[in-house]
């Protein structure tokens, strides 16, 4: 199915509407109706008979049932309507059904049609020897078999419902339309595999569609779905992603870092070196944690990766600023230390009490804040570094894709937005009666597609960026740096 492009959405206020949800267009009149949600519960008993007796015997038995019901003027297929009959009439209705199908055929329905819903039905069909789980299994199978309107069992049910209306004289077919009578008469004689059924099935279903809305009771259907949901268990599905990833590139990164550490003695006293290699090592450390601790498929892998991206952008942005702001590296350090000072001072001044077992070590923070100069000279910025928003930094670094795709995707995980929760922690339930809801992954089985490949991209970008200042080993350049990117 073609998806509606973003450009075809209509912007009204802060919302993008599809043509189907436009409140001034189709959205105001369109009503969604689902076969399984709205109609199937009414006819589940018919499905059960066909399912348990087999198609041929089931349809035959139901034809007999319909004829006899019609003779007694109680020819109606909807469970909600049958339930509304007088007690004697309802008893007569189901006794007729029993004569053709046997009592045990409809016993599974007692799980749903409990005495509070239909006492007559329950008393007639309850079986002490029937097991609840077996009955639920049978009902689930039918619901699975006719979950979609185009399923074969669904069409068989539609055929029977059509006949209820024909027999009771509520469906009249014009002599001018030949196909409907032919389909109604011939349908049961053919197997679903036969070519002719490709023509009959849509006719049977479209006839049903015209009738079903007449007598179906959506409240009753909702009640039955609720019952079914209550008695059946969730069947959560886990998506299993490959969790192994080649360590080759990571091994080369380790060698490269080793090379950089050994070959930059002359720069070690420079602020620029401290900041560039500090940020580089921070990114390397994050990458290493993902790789060494096999976090590629974990939520924290994504959160770590997003931090790698953000740190990389900070680094690239500072290096770009260097041309116009010659003390940018000291400013960057000062900005960060100011941020630390703010937290440390709040703890020190007792604004909040922090447990000694907490990650916060006030003494260490104080030491860091006072490392370069006494804290009385350290200012604290409450805004962004260089007063530049993060998306603008990505833009100036010409890394818009990193921002719009990777960083924004990662934001879902760092902020615990629903998309991330859904992907990582919620599982779709395969139980058709639960309407494919999602359930929490209590046993923590869901993993995620690995971030290792994306980490590689960022690490390559990082090395390329710092290569203006830091010499990279020859093996790395020949292996990973394209000719046109070489320095």
């Amino acid at each position, binding site marked *: 199915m073609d998806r509606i492009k973003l450009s075809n959405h209509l912007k009204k206020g802060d919302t993008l509407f599809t043509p189907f949800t436009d409140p001034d267009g189709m959205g105001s009149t369109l009503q969604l109706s689902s076969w399984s949600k709205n109609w199937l519960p009414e006819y589940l008993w018919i499905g059960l008979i066909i399912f348990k007796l087999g198609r041929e015997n089931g349809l035959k038995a139901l034809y007999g049932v319909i004829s006899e019901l019609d003779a007694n003027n109680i020819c109606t297929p909807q469970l909600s309507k049958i339930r509304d009959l007088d007690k004697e009439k309802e008893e007569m209705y189901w006794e007729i059904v029993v004569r053709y199908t046997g009592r045990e055929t409809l016993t599974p329905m007692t799980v749903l049609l409990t005495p509070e819903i239909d006492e007559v039905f329950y008393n007639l069909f309850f079986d002490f020897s029937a*097991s609840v789980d077996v009955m639920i299994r049978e009902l689930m199978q039918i619901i699975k078999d006719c979950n979609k309107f185009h399923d074969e069992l669904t069409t068989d049910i539609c055929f029977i419902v059509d006949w209820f209306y024909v027999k009771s004289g509520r469906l009249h077919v014009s002599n001018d339309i030949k196909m409907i009578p032919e389909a109604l008469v011939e349908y049961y004689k053919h197997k679903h595999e036969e070519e002719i059924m490709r023509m009959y099935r849509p006719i049977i279903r479209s006839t049903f569609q015209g009738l079903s809305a007449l007598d179906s009771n959506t409240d009753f259907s909702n009640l039955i779905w609720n019952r079914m949901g209550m008695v059946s268990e969730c069947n959560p599905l886990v998506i299993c992603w490959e969790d192994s990833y080649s360590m080759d590139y990571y091994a080369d990164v380790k060698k490269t870092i080793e090379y950089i550490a050994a070959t930059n003695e002359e720069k070690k006293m420079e602020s620029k070196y401290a900041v560039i290699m500090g940020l580089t090592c921070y990114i390397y450390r994050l990458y290493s944690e993902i790789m060494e601790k096999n976090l590629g498929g974990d939520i924290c892998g994504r959160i770590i990766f997003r931090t790698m991206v953000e740190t990389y952008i900070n680094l690239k942005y500072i290096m770009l600023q260097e041309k116009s702001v010659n003390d940018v590296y000291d400013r960057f350090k000062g900005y960060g230390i100011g941020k630390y000072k703010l937290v440390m001072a709040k703890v020190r001044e007792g604004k909040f009490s922090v447990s000694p077992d907490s990650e916060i070590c006030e003494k260490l923070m104080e030491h860091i804040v006072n490392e370069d100069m006494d804290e009385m000279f350290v200012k604290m910025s409450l805004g962004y570094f260089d007063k530049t928003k993060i998306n603008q930094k990505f833009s100036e670094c010409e890394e818009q894709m990193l921002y719009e795709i990777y960083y924004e995707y990662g934001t879902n995980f760092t902020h615990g937005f629903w998309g991330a929760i859904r992907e990582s922690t919620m599982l779709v339930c395969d139980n058709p009666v639960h309407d494919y809801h999602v359930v929490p992954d209590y046993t923590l089985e869901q993993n995620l597609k690995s971030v290792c490949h994306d980490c590689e991209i960022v690490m390559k970008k990082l090395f390329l960026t710092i290569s203006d200042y830091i010499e990279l080993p020859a093996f790395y350049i020949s292996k990973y740096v394209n000719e046109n990117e070489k320095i």
Partner: protein
Amino acid sequence: MIEEKQLKQITKAYLSILEKYESRIPVLDIDDIKRLIGDVRLFWYRQKRNVQYVLSHIELSDEVYFLAGAVRVDIDNDGHIDFVLEGKYRIVNEPFLKLSSFYSGTSSEIDFDYANRYLKDSLIDTIKLLREYPGDFYVLPLEPYTNDDMTEYAETLIKCSDQLLLALFENKNASIKELVETYNSYEEIEDAMLPEISKMLTFDSLEDTKLTIREKCNKYLEEYASKLPLLNSLTEIQVFCMAASQFFMQALAIIFIMKCYKIRPFIRDDIAFNYFTIVTKKTSVMGDYSNIEYFYVYVPFILQKVIDFSGKGYNNAKEHYGNGKLVERVVQYCEEQDFESVSPNVIVNYATEIMEKGSSLVL
């Protein structure tokens, strides 16, 4: 540690289901029974995970006892007073799931009047127990109750019981079918059985040890043939196998619950206790079942059998000796005396001595 809050919530919800049928008790008919059984089944089906959670979190140190070898506590005969002496928590195995199996049979197999009466009595007893003694007693299904689990459980019980039955004979038969084909009369069975075990097997009363197998089986038929009409059509060896299997399976079911959930059985019935002892003491089914654990079952059995606590009243008995106080003291005493040398008289005398001192027991 036991999840008491969950246990209370489940029991409360369960009681509210039973109470729906309370007004119908005087006129309870088959449609009411269908509704009751259907309601109870669905309730436990929905609570399956919750029940499993509660049961799997019980530790032996929680001191949980379950009523074994009986369907109901029997408040009218002060069964609740005997039961409240045991442990810190007391669970009754859900009665109606079990009783529903009666109604699956035909009238040639089951005495429905008896079944209806029994169900009605159980309903009255359970409602009274949970309503009047909340927090003292709980109800949970302790045996499997879904079809798949039940099939596996029943097969395991039958298999183990068959093995125990075959082990009673000096000449080893490969199967129960072979056993049934080998012997024709009670006398032939008696001659072929290991003498010590033959004596221990009783089907009606503990005092039947001196009876012949024929006499024991006849007593069994007298007791059960009217409730299980099927017994009338069986051969002598089949009757014997059925009787022995019935009690072995009951003992195995008790042991299954004990082992699965770290809870102790409170057994009142002589025959059930006899088979429990045979299986735990004379076979390797229980593996390393310690003397002290056995005495936590044995002492309550002896006390309820010999001492009449009903005269003390429920609250008095619970306060002074209940929640395991008396049993713990007696078991400790038995341990000091060496378990092997302790007779029922020693247990009763020590318990009586403690009670005559007239003070509350503090553990």
